[in-house]
């Protein structure tokens, strides 16, 4: 299937194709932004990457292994979460469903957390697109936590510094996939470089219908989903089916 598809050689064209027409202009500008920062840290060989994750929810069994492996990887204190799984139940008896939605930082192409950070502690890494927090620069003002449309950030109660998922930079830099990808029982998570048209994630993105969370925010998330159920409790007003969201974390509601 995807092996037969014509390889996309031009990265910018590929990215445009990927994101589609509506966002074409913003994508272009972001690509410019990235290329302008093109100063490879270690010689000519290093290429710019654009890391992304694709979560195939058809393979998700809601087992929380990703959540707990993340807790273990970073020794995350109780009460805060970098990675979690939400359950969405809807329907009326006996026609009911439960879908699972694994959540993490979306590593947005236009991260609102970066825009509001007063110290520059939060930034998007030019070499791979991962949004990171420099704990030395963070003053714990929580602006980013408020700004994130995905509720992906928190103040670490131990260090009082803003934290969130960073695609396990410490693993990725050593040639390992993020911990949640490694531990996922259903192999629902695919991690890779979407600037490489031959990467598994690029192939899957071009050959499957995918969605992102809250596309209307213009953040262009770099976490994509196959088969995600985006139903939300506000749909209960429509009256024909009931939706129940369980976040499995301290914040019971979705932002």
């Amino acid at each position, binding site marked *: 299937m995807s092996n037969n598809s014509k390889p996309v050689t031009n990265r910018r064209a590929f990215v445009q194709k990927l994101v589609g027409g509506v966002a074409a202009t913003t994508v272009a500008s972001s690509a410019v932004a990235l290329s302008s*920062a093109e100063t490879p840290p270690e010689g000519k060989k*290093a*290429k710019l990457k654009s890391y992304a994750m694709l979560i*195939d929810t058809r*393979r998700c*069994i*809601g*087992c*929380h*292994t990703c*959540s*707990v*492996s993340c*807790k*273990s*990887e*970073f*020794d995350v*204190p*109780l*009460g805060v979460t970098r990675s979690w799984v939400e359950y969405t*139940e809807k*329907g009326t*008896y*006996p026609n*009911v469903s*439960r879908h*699972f939605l694994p959540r993490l930082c979306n590593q947005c192409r236009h991260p609102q957390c*970066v*825009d*509001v*950070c007063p110290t*520059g502690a939060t930034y*998007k*890494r030019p*070499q*791979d697109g991962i949004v*990171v927090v420099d*704990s*030395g620069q963070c003053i714990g003002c929580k602006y980013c936590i408020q700004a994130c449309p995905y509720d992906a950030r928190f103040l670490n109660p131990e260090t009082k510094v803003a934290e969130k998922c960073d695609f396990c930079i*410490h*693993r*990725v*830099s*050593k*040639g*390992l*996939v993020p911990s949640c990808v*490694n*531990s*996922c*029982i*259903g*192999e629902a998570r695919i991690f*890779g470089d979407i600037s*490489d048209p031959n*990467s598994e994630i690029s192939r899957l993105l071009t050959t499957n219908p995918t969605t992102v969370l809250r596309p209307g925010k213009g953040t262009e998330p770099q976490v994509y989903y196959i088969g995600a159920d985006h139903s939300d409790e506000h749909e209960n007003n429509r009256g024909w089916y009931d939706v*129940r969201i369980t976040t499995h*974390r*301290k914040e019971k509601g979705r932002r």
Partner: protein
Amino acid sequence: MVDRRNFIKLGIATAGAQLLPIRKVMAEDGTPLKHGGEDYSQFSGNQHVAVPSICGQCPSRCAILGYLDDGKLAKIEGHPDSIRNQGRVCAKGQAGAAKVYDPDRILTPLRRVGPRGQGEWEKISWDEALDELTTRLKKFRDAGTPEKFVFHHGWISDSAEKLIDDVFLASYGTGSIIKQTCQQQSARWTAHELTWGATADNWDFDNARYVLNFGSNVLEAHTNFVSLAKRLTKSTVDHDLKMMTFDVRLSNTAANSDRWIPIKPGTDLAVVLAMCNVVMSEDLYGRDGEKFIDFCLVSENYNALPGEKIVTLKKHLADYTPEWAEKISGVAAQDIRQIAREFAITKPACIISSRGAAAHYNGVQTERAIQMLAAITGNIDNPGGRCQAVSAQWTYPTGPKSKPVSRKLSFIDDIASTTALPQFGAGHSVLRRIKESGERPGLYMWYHHNPAYANGSTRETVEILKDESLLPFTVAVTPFYDETAALADLILPDATYLERYDIEAAVSPGQVPEYALRQPFVEPQGEARDFKDVCCELAKRLDIKLGFKSAEKFIDKACKLTIVVKKKARGFRGMQKIGVWHDKKAQPIYFAYRERIENATLADDGVLLDEATGVYWNWKTAEVESEAKAKSIGYLGTPGAFKGYVAQRVGYAAYSGFRPGILNKTGLFELYSPLLAAKGMPGLPTYVEIPDHVKMSDDEMILTTFKVNVQSLSNTGNGGWLTEIHHENPVWINPVSATARGIIDGDALIIKSPLGEVSGTAMVTPTVAPGVLAVSTHLGRWQGGRYASGNPAPFALGDHRHDEHQWWQAGGTHANWIIPDNPEPVSGQQCWMDTVVTLEKASS
């Protein structure tokens, strides 16, 4: 606002270069990222030391890698070389990394100082503890009553069972051993022993095209969870496997099935029989079914021709129509018909089942009917079907050659008077039987077991455990302080599974056996000791020569005795390096029953053909006095004849057949069970009603329990990261049932059974069938540590990192207070799902 582009430059130039060093983008640019097998500290960047071992959080026993950071266990992941769990391990397994450092561990032997159960303890030395035990054990032995030492354990490792039960306790002379693996599985296992002679089953999801599920939550809580869930998920998405799930509630397994079909609790048997009816009456058994029926026994006539067998089955099933089943189960007849047809014509198809179908009064009949549906469609032991489980075959040292005659207290077996085939002991009712029998164990010790929480009839269980006139001296062996340890006289701190050696022989989902070794990541914390080592020391104090000095030596010897491990996996040292081993040339084991047995084997010394049944058996191996006697009383008339089983004649040839396991059956797949018939029970799977459900009034409901994916009964409750996810267990109730009682979501409830009442919170949800209450069975703890119950263990440490961040109140509902201890009549399986209750709103 900061200009973003400049900001990025700024970020690169100055910010946090040391905290977030920009490394080479990837070690080998362009090569795909590896999944696991190596690990680095998130804090220091240092590479962790990887040690292979086996998880012990639940009975799945997945192969794992533990990563050590400066000698401290930092992380656990699935062992990438394991052909079972294929590099994956579940949330519980991941959370195991924190278990060594659990602040509520017991770190020294503790002796009760106040009244039993008051929670007043003193720390004592191992010497004092073992002196006390030795004195008592010597006293029993000298008086000729070693059986007064009663040992009761839950799921333990293969090697622990061999070392403790078969070597240490056998050498001491007590046979008063209760293996409580029967909480969930004994009905299924007994049905398996009756039909195909083996205990465990395996579901070949790699090759299945269709899965028919009766009450298994395989995507959350199976005893081979990760291995099966991974394969099932892959086949569902990549191979378009279709799955139908019958369950009283929408489990995650039901949610990920093509369809969830709600069913009234305890009526799976009716639906399965009706499906068998459809297959037979519509002649859907096909060539595969017909071929398989050749190997089946369907009546007392061992020599029935295939055509006769089909007629017998059709006749037996004729009345079990889908319309009949609809009235009983609430499942529409047309659904039963359609699913039966799909199941019969889709090849291969796998029928799966668990507690939801089998933890009932009619559990053994249900599981036998399920075996029948698989058999008549030819889905037994085939690629993609329901297979006899394959696991590693270890050989262990057997200890002293001459052991005393094993003696046991009579209550161990007195269940036989009320239960037809209690092969798995019905351990859940042992405490009650002690009370009723009048016999008193001199020393009652439990290991890897928490009966006060895990058994039904909680109040009675706790009272018996507290009663010094019934149990004069009790010893808990556990790494953690739990509900039952709190009632002990002496607590011996055990090593966790992360601190000890073990051999495990778990089921291989790919039908190729995998050999696996558990080894310590770290030394036991405090003064904790592996109980296997403690047994070795007790043996020394009792002047018993076991032939090995420690658990490590025992396992080292097992690695030498097990030929493939010695020769191909380089023995103990080799296993320590690789953790798991399998023969790469081995083919998956299917259709083992069709293996032809050579005439030479049949002509071996002592082998006889039992003309009545077609069984070839060796009267010498079966320990019969003479050939003449063996011939005169025959295979079925000889107790223990199955030990001499050689082959089964089918037609004109001798086959390996379905070898008997622990029951005296033939080598046929016994759909008709002469053993049950001899006990006055129906020989062929027959509908049996659940007595308590026959006459229920409108205001009564059936209480069911379930397990969730982040907890392993009471074993993982103090894992903060797990209990953080599952710390509330509202009672699921269908809107129809709720409305009828004026209950709305979030209402406080009182649930009552004849045993008493428990409180709960209503979750009004369409994900449960009307008339049913469903509640998870992990919460409502009163001991077990701060995260599990809110009560720290005696002498517990402070957990400075986490204590102040615990954001939930430990609580929840524990339904076992109102679920009676209730053994099912064939196997003694606890009937978890049969309790009839009433429900009311709690007055505020």
